[in-house]
């Protein structure tokens, strides 16, 4: 009889609702909750928090989870694995510890995983001539003229396994690669190898776990959310059930969702999540294993139950991926609306006046963009826009103006300079108070590879 464990995809992004996870915990439908909080850009957001307050830098929804979800989960013996620690796992652990202690909870071991954050080590890498060349264009990081905002290496699952082996109830990790959270859980439960993997069996096991992690990492996106294949989605989404994987140590399993919930799990919803953010399906690269998904077998077994098997693994890549955030400048945007009649002609007149105004102001705009909302806002030049006569018949049109600039004064001056067009410009224009964005930091990501021997993840424990 093979051993089975249940892992829930409890969070798809920083800011996701905790309700799906709370329901799974209350119904005790999982042994582990896997929370993924770190999209590519999330670390930039967390870095801004950390610069304002050095005790911040973690995904702040863990504070909500600590008050609502964790007590329920711990009372059922459910363990939680998350990368919500972000840029400051230890501070996150202190915060969670304080909240749990205030609630009278005892006997909980929190583990943090760090060592992925190499921002402070970039000068050391330069000194030691560690090559950091851009995966997209081959340029050297050391030639880059922008200041770094964060630098994190995608690390693997070994420390997740180690922390669970040592009895952790809650793991707050930094930039552990999303699907590796599931691998750490399965390697712990099934006693699989990770860093010491050496056989085809080891690689196939890891590849299976990574695939489960990939399906779960976006939460409700695997269980009927955001699903074109199920459109018009004849199920409720306000109480969408989050996905749960039942996995066996023989590398088979199935995906289902929480009971008494909306959403749907089908071969189609799982297919959609599988293709998401994957490039070559024969070479899905993760820190611990390269996954070949080309022979995957997905089958509808019964309602809301899809079986999964047939995944192959290959040895891990030689190097790890490092993403360095760079502060290139700012983006400012503002919205205006134009009413019938002549909505389109008025909008065009307004754009012309904006451009003329900007030439007279002491500002430096690097690039500007004008989108007509409801017409070419999302797809820009890829769509044909209706002719002026038709657009003039619309009851309203929206205009979005966005600019890139290098200094933090240009945005304010550029927008302040054009609001007078509400009175001085064409009739029937409004701007909505509070809308728009001033000086949103414009960050670029510098993706490169780094020798894995330079990176040594560390686990620390905090007892509650």
């Amino acid at each position, binding site marked *: 009889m093979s051993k089975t464990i249940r892992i829930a995809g409890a969070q798809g992004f920083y800011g996701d609702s905790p309700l799906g996870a709370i329901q799974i915990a209350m119904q005790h439908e999982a042994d582990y909750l896997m929370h993924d909080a770190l999209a590519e850009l999330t670390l930039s957001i967390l870095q801004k928090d950390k610069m304002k307050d050095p005790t911040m830098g973690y995904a702040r929804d863990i504070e909500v989870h600590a008050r609502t979800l964790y007590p329920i989960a711990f009372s059922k013996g459910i363990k939680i694995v998350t990368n919500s620690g972000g840029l400051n796992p230890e501070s996150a652990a202190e915060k969670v510890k304080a909240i749990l202690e205030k609630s009278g909870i005892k006997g909980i071991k929190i583990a943090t995983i760090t060592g992925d954050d190499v921002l402070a080590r970039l000068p050391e890498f330069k000194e030691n001539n560690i090559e950091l060349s851009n995966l997209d264009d081959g340029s050297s990081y050391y030639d880059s003229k922008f200041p770094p905002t964060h630098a994190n290496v995608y690390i693997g699952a070994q420390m997740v396994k180690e922390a669970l082996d040592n009895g952790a109830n809650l793991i707050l990790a930094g930039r552990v690669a999303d699907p590796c959270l599931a691998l750490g859980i399965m390697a712990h439960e099934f006693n699989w190898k990770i860093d010491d993997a050496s056989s085809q069996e080891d690689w196939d096991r890891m590849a299976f776990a990574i695939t489960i992690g990939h399906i779960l990492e976006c939460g409700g996106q695997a269980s009927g959310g955001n699903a074109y294949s199920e459109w018009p989605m004849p199920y409720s989404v306000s109480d969408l059930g989050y996905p749960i994987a039942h996995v066996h140590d023989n590398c088979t399993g199935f995906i289902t969702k929480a009971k008494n919930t909306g959403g749907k799990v089908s071969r189609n919803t799982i297919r959609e999540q599988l293709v998401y953010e994957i490039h070559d399906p024969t070479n899905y690269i993760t820190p611990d294993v390269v996954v070949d998904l080309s022979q995957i077998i997905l089958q509808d077994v019964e309602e809301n139950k899809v079986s999964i098997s047939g995944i192959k693994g290959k040895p891990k890549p030689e190097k790890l991926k490092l993403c360095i955030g760079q502060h290139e400048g700012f983006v400012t945007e503002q919205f205006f609306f134009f009413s019938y009649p002549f909505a389109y002609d008025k909008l065009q007149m307004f754009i012309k006046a904006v451009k003329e105004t900007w030439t007279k102001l002491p500002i430096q705009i690097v690039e500007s963009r004008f989108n007509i909302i409801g017409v070419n806002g999302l797809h820009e030049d890829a*769509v044909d826009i209706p002719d002026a006569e038709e657009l003039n018949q619309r009851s309203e049109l929206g205009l979005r103006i966005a600019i890139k600039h290098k200094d933090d004064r240009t945005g304010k001056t550029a927008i302040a300079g054009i609001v007078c067009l509400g009175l001085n410009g064409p009739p029937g224009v409004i701007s909505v108070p509070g809308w728009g964005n001033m000086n949103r930091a414009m960050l670029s990501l510098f993706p490169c590879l780094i020798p894995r021997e330079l990176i040594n993840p560390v686990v620390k424990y905090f007892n509650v």
Partner: protein
Amino acid sequence: MKIKLIDIASARSGDKNNVCNIGVMAKSIEDYATLKKYLTPEVVKEHFKGLIKGKVERFEWDALESLNFVCHEALDGGASRSLRMDTLGKNFSSHLLRLELEIL
């Protein structure tokens, strides 16, 4: 004969820096054969009229009756540098589903 992509497939797109991938899932085995024959990287790139600046790679995923299009230099420099509204290219899937394939 023309076939609307939305009648034979679903799609989902996502970002990795300045690269956008669009997974296209056929509704049936027959539809997959049609996609394989007619939904070429060239057709996809042309449909986006300059939004995709780099090359488009196509990966066939027979086990899932799906094609995966990896579109390079497609996101105006990447999510946080982009001046677009759809910074992450999440709606590349929607726009692709608008495509009509000319079936010979």
